[in-house]
């Protein structure tokens, strides 16, 4: 404890004892913050206080000094808590740095390339609720074909992130002749079932647009239904298909369905972070999402995705309760 600090403490307290002014308390309190910055423990403050008082009023009764000694004793464990805090902050900062690196590694490791086949406009947005994203979007591009996997790993954070690598490397290893949605889900399901224990499940939607016949075929492993906007009839319909979550049963079968897309039609594939947006007034319903999509139906796929995100994250006061992912496949008139 530097002498200078003790001298200043005495000066400030002296002024306060003379004037009782708010200004001295303000100065004193600002001064106490410097104590904390200098890691001066509370028991040291009591000791400085005692010294200052004894120099200013040496004639006070002995009970005063003894009671301050007692108070020092009572403060020792508070001082320990404070030093523990400083050490914990440093530990926390180290973890934070590790998380930041992990997030960057994950981003590079799991990066995906937007598809580009004629007549298809693609947009997507995927935002984590915590540091790391437990939703995953991965595009698989073949000639005349654009496939997309939209997955939600049950659970968030690091454990979920670890599982996503399975999906990516699993899909990268798919043989060219095996890219129908039912096959993709079947193969990824077997990898997941083999690689993770029973407490870890993944829901996944796989959709594939075929540029030659403009059909969109899809299969679902216990995932949220997608929405199909039919611009001719100006209506939405839900696209769902039967299938168990990935990782439940190694021989699970997946239903495959398809729909033809006309110019102006689009498909919105989402995770439950979108459909189960929680607001102060309860859950958002499908109707709200359809209305949001309809408001911007003539914009680009990316604008549609961002519009939905903006509105739903506003409703949640900027605090996502779950990872949020939406992918738009929009049929455009083909440029010749």
């Amino acid at each position, binding site marked *: 404890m530097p002498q200078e600090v003790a001298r200043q403490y005495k000066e400030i307290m002296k002024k306060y004892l003379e004037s009782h002014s*708010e*200004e001295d*308390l*303000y100065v004193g*309190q600002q001064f106490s*913050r410097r104590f*904390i*910055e200098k890691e001066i423990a509370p028991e040291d403050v009591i000791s400085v206080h005692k010294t200052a008082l004894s120099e200013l009023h040496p004639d006070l009764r002995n009970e005063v000094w003894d009671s301050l000694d007692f108070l020092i004793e009572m403060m020792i464990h508070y001082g320990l808590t404070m030093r523990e*805090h*400083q050490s914990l*902050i440093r530990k*926390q*900062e180290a973890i*934070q740095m590790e998380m930041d690196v992990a997030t960057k590694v994950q981003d590079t490791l799991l990066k995906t390339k937007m598809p580009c086949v004629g007549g298809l406009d693609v947009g997507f947005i995927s935002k984590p609720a915590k540091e790391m994203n437990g939703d995953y979007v991965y595009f698989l591009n073949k000639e005349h074909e654009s496939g997309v996997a939209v997955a939600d790993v049950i659970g968030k954070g690091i454990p979920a992130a670890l599982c996503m690598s399975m999906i990516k490397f699993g899909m990268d290893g798919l043989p060219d002749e095996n890219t129908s949605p039912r096959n993709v889900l079947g193969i990824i399901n077997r990898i997941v079932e083999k690689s993770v224990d029973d407490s870890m499940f993944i829901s996944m939607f796989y959709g594939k647009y075929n540029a030659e016949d403009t059909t969109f075929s899809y299969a679902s492993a216990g995932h949220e239904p997608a929405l199909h906007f039919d611009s001719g009839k100006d209506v939405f319909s839900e696209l769902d298909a039967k299938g168990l979550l990935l990782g439940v049963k190694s021989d699970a079968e997946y239903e495959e369905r398809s729909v033809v897309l006309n110019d102006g039609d689009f498909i919105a594939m989402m995770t439950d972070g979108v459909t189960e947006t929680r607001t102060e007034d309860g859950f958002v319903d499908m109707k709200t999402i359809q209305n949001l999509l309809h408001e911007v139906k003539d914009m680009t796929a990316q604008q549609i995705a961002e519009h939905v995100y903006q509105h739903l994250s506003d409703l949640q006061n*900027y*605090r996502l309760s779950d990872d949020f992912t939406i992918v738009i496949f929009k049929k455009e008139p083909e440029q010749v």
Partner: protein
Amino acid sequence: MNFRSSVEIITEWDIVAARQLGRNEAKKAGFGTVDQARITTAISELARNIYLYAGKGKIEIERVSEGGLFGIKIIASDEGPGIPDLRKVMEDGFSTSGGLGAGMPGVKRLMDEFKVTSEPGAGTIITSTKWLH
């Protein structure tokens, strides 16, 4: 009508004036010495933030009652640059506070209720209430 009084924050002296007003009101409202000090510290932090980051603003102090509870409400408003990322400010800023326990999370801890609305470019309003227990 509820009692309400205010202090304009322009210079550092005004921080002291706001503290004094807050302490007097807290005392009149029946708060004990420690809670008086907590309310005063919260006002001090809010006024300092205005002084440091917005340049100019106002601290208002209001006696409030609600369902048999009595308390004191602090309203800190400014027309400064606003807070660009509310989500970040509302988080527990351990490392940012450097262990000083101040800033928004500090005010939140000193009081019972805390609310902030901010518009980038248009300013910030923070209201915070402490109830007599």
